[in-house]
């Protein structure tokens, strides 16, 4: 049963919440290599550490929601009343439907086809964009496990392209702790040239460099990301903690949520009793 508050997911943890990605799976389809096809679901692998704030109405502390409006009207335009348009000239749009988007590359909109396997070490970190996980769907568990295992053993990652919504993604799929991780990569076209910022060819004195190497050596360590925390996020959480102690939180008024029908038997019993009550009064 749904909670009787407004249409949102409550922030589950006081620290962080992800942004645009739903925890339930962003996409589902098939990942294939050669003739093996594995049904999978794409889920997020990172949760942005942004402190998640909510906008409230200053008058009564009702939560605010983003809604679409007609520039002329005062009425909310529901998602069913909206279409996706491409502006071909000022204020003139071409409608593009969901089906048309998918049909642009039908073979790649439901399948992540691995076309080749590469050594992940060859991928320059500049290419990395956003990580996800793939989880197997029913029937695909064994071939999923096989792909995880062989990529682990060969130390290789699969390259593929697939279409999600308005974009086609260039991706690398590799095994990570027994799961398939999918990394969206930047296209090489998206990587800016840097010829204009090259350093001047100044001679490096050998002694200078070796001194630098010595101090680097002293500072060698194993990469341990746990050591570093987002200072800003910590400060904001401290601020909120402090404010919580000082002052009671404001309370949002309850907002009606339409819920499903009550059980028919119960309603019938109540109606019958209600008739008797009314007769007796």
């Amino acid at each position, binding site marked *: *049963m749904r909670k009787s508050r407004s249409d949102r997911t409550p922030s589950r943890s006081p620290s962080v919440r992800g942004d645009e990605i739903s925890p339930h799976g962003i996409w589902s389809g098939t990942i294939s290599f050669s003739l093996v096809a594995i049904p999978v679901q794409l889920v997020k692998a990172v949760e942005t550490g942004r402190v998640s704030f909510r906008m409230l109405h200053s008058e009564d502390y009702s939560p605010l929601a983003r809604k679409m409006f007609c520039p002329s009207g005062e009425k909310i335009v529901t998602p069913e009343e909206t279409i996706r348009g491409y502006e071909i000239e000022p204020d003139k749009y071409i409608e593009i439907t969901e089906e048309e988007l998918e049909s642009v590359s039908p073979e790649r909109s439901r399948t992540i086809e691995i076309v080749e396997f590469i050594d992940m070490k060859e991928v320059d970190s500049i290419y990395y964009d956003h990580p996800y996980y793939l989880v197997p769907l029913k029937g695909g568990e064994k071939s999923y496990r096989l792909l995880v295992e062989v990529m682990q053993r060969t130390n290789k990652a699969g390259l593929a392209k697939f279409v999600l919504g308005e974009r086609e993604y260039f991706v690398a799929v590799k095994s990570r702790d027994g799961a398939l991780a999918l990394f969206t990569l930047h296209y090489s076209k998206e990587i800016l040239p840097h010829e204009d910022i090259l350093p001047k060819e100044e001679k490096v004195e050998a002694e200078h460099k070796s001194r630098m190497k010595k101090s680097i050596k002293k500072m060698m360590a194993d990469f341990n990301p746990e050591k570093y925390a987002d200072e800003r996020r910590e400060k904001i959480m401290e601020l909120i903690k402090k404010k919580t102690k000082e002052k009671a939180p404001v309370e949002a*008024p309850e907002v009606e949520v339409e819920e499903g029908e*009550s*059980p028919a038997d119960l309603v019938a*019993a*109540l109606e019958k*009793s209600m008739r008797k009550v009314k007769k007796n009064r």
Partner: protein
Amino acid sequence: MSRKIVEISGKRLALSNLEKDLYPSYGFTKAHILEYYRRIAQFILPHLRDRALTLKRYPEGVEKEPFFEKRCPSHRPPWVKTAEIRLDDGEPMTMCLVDDLETLMWVANLASLELHVPLAKAASRETPDSVVFDLDPGDGANIIDCARVALILRDLFSQLRLSSYVKTSGKKGLHLYVPLNRKETTFEDTKTFAKAVAEIMQKNYPELVTARMAKKQRETKVFIDWSQNDSAKTMICVYSLRGGEKPVVSFPLAWEELEESVGQNDPEKLQVMYSEAVSKAEKNGDLFQDVIVKKQKLPHL
């Protein structure tokens, strides 16, 4: 700042700021509050027992901002019982359990005028012990309208062979409880039941009742808030003081008292002050006793 060390059942407790006027327009001090809770203790303690307490503290009195405290203050004496409550986000939180007079005195000394408890015990957080109907008058409606709704609900429940009990909220409304005290009950059951009841009431008494939360819909009507039947929610405990202008108590009423006040159209009768609360309870006993012991089953769920 005055400080007084008292000993209750061999436990030492420091009471502070006793002369602090917490209801300034009424001249009701911290000492009065401690005295009220001491005298009402035998009645309120069974209703607080085993339930994770939410404190609503008024350190600067009822005219200043209070604050809710769910976490049991870390500066608590070692003998205060606590429960580890796992919240939705999975983080455990230590909350106070008020099982004895000394803990009640300690809590009152924190200027926690209001004591809020969930419908379930700390050890069985998903099992509500009763269904509750929070009757809240909208603008233009009053507690007599709530009493009318409560009486219809009582009749409706008696048709379903369910006993119900009513108390004042200590503010503007009434709280009606249907005891269940069965470990099979879930909040989903109680919420489904309460919502169906609220809707059927709205359908049959559209001028008097609304089951909708929106402010506009509540005008001149009694809002039956069924959504309180939730593990995350708390209700003001019966016999607790309220942080209003005067030291009013959330107090149980006999159905006859309710009928009488509707007959006389006297909303004042449904405001029980602390002094009256103590003498009435001592005379009549705990009218809410059945709420925590009577076993009943909801129909068709």
